[in-house]
């Protein structure tokens, strides 16, 4: 054993009294900061609680005046009229029309783009298209709304096709909203398909399947939960989208029976009614929150479904 005296190293046993390992400095700062970080995280729960309370309190006021049944199943929405009526069905049908049209556009286009990017595009092309997709996902919805109103409705529908429609239609709003949602669906389902292991594709190719067969029969089913999550998220975005419908779908709350009619959606109503500067505590003010609560619950339901599916696809790989 070497008995040289330490040069740069520490003084060692024996001879040195053991210095205690117990903390030399109390780390109060450390605990305080960690406590604050924790508070920040808990604040997110507080926000959700805040949303619920903020929506519930005026909604309860609202439902003291209007019965839940009349609200959910009434077919006349006229909160500002003298003989006020609070049947939410007209708003719901308009939301269903715009969202339905949007999804008819967004699902095939989004999935097609995702399949192309994931299975067919060369790496170089993909490297360009993915960021472009991300940027397109960030176009403000006001701009989409303007496009729907001026170009799709006015120029194309009324000008080129000479359709029997007014200044607004749920079709124009829905179509443009669909295009707006394409990047969301494409991006998430592309992630899901890219996550399918290469070995599964090779296994399929080795059996003589061509690329289409591999895509449709192997990759697509394997990525299904991620794809469903993307679609469900698309649904919740369509239901919650405000500006496009506020600009292009119109402002009359009537039961919508055809795509060329105008209609006011739930979000459209909230945006519009808020302009009227309703007094806090008035029935009109409470109405906003009742519709908001319905909207929140619907999207919450879709989000939970989406999260469940995402979890499942994370578990597989």
């Amino acid at each position, binding site marked *: 054993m070497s008995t040289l005296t330490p040069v740069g*190293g*520490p003084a*060692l046993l024996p001879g040195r009294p053991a210095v205690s*390992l117990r903390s030399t400095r109390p780390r109060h700062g450390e605990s305080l900061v960690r406590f604050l970080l924790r508070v920040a995280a808990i604040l997110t729960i507080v926000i959700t609680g805040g949303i619920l309370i903020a929506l519930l309190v005026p909604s309860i006021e609202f439902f003291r005046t209007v019965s839940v049944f009349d609200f959910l199943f009434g077919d006349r929405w006229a909160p500002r009229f003298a003989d006020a009526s609070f049947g939410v069905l007209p708003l719901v049908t308009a939301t269903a029309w715009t969202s339905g049209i949007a999804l008819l556009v967004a699902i095939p286009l989004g999935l097609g783009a995702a399949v192309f990017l994931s299975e067919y595009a060369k790496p170089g092309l993909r490297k360009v298209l993915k960021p472009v997709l991300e940027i397109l996902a960030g176009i403000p919805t006001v701009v989409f709304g303007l496009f729907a109103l001026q170009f799709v409705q006015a120029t194309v529908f009324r000008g080129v096709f000479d359709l029997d429609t007014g200044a607004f239609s749920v079709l124009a709003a829905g179509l443009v909203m669909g295009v707006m949602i394409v990047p969301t669906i494409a991006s998430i389902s592309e992630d899901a398909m890219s996550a399918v292991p290469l070995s599964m594709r090779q296994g399929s190719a080795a059996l003589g399947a061509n690329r289409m067969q591999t895509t449709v029969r192997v990759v697509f089913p394997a990525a299904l939960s991620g794809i469903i999550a993307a679609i469900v998220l698309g649904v919740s975005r369509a239901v919650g989208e405000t500006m496009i419908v506020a600009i292009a779908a119109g402002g009359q709350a009537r039961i919508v029976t055809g795509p060329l009619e105008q209609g006011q959606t739930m979000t459209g109503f909230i945006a519009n009614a808020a302009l009227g500067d309703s007094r806090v505590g008035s029935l009109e003010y409470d109405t906003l929150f009742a519709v908001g609560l319905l909207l929140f619950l619907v999207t919450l339901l879709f989000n939970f479904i989406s999260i469940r599916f995402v979890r499942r696809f994370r578990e597989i790989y």
Partner: protein
Amino acid sequence: MTTNTRAASYTTGSDQKRTIHFPDEHAHRSKGLPAVPNAIIECKDVNVYYNAFRAVTGVDLAFGSKEITALIGPSGCGKSTLLRSLNRMNDLIDGARVEGSVTFQGEDIYHREVDAIEVRRRIGMVFQKPNPFPKSIYDNIAYGPRVIGMKASNMDDLVEEALTRAALWTEVKDKLKQSAFGLSGGQQQRLCIARTIAVKPDVILMDEPCSSLDPIATSRIEDLMYELREDYTIIIVTHNMQQAARVADRTAFFTALASEETGDRTGLLVEYDLTKKIFESPADQRTEDYISGRFG
């Protein structure tokens, strides 16, 4: 050596066939530790668990001050797990739990009032893969002294001293401000050693420090370890038996027992002695099998 008889007892009887159960656990505790003069770290009946799974069982070991001790054995025998329990790096793993006692200079490092951070300051660690920080070479070295609030009158001198001791100074002295990621793997590992020296620990734990390095870089690290032994206690886990034979004063051989029910492998100490004795005349058959390459 007492450990030999203790280890031998594990192989006898039908105990091995059941789930791991050691009836003589307590009987041996009184027999004391292997005779290591000047022990700095002592393990007494150390068991390490990951949740319900027992990764290491009943280890009695003492590490001599300013010696190099090697921990060898087949993979999954709990060497690294034991090493990590010596400076409480296991604290960072969810569900990890240490039973028994690990003392450093006579003080139980798992005592409720002991500060794990203080323990790690005294017992440093070098990892399997070089893990320089994404900072300059200089800042990699200065990081430790800064965070522990060392009152270095001149940080530049401290950095130079640490790099010199780690035999890296001449190679990097002109590029101290450059990213540590620009260094080769061997240089990175020496940087990690220098970084550890800079906080002036008493013990340096090394977890297979050469496993990702080429033979030339490996031999430089071995030379370095030998020089550092003058001032530091070094405990090294290695897969490379020649390495243990070359550098270590003492060697502990571990093996793993598989439970028949769950297939979980629990590590235990078979034999601990002077390196020369372990490699030339091991007392236990399993050690001999492993050393001669018949097993593992």
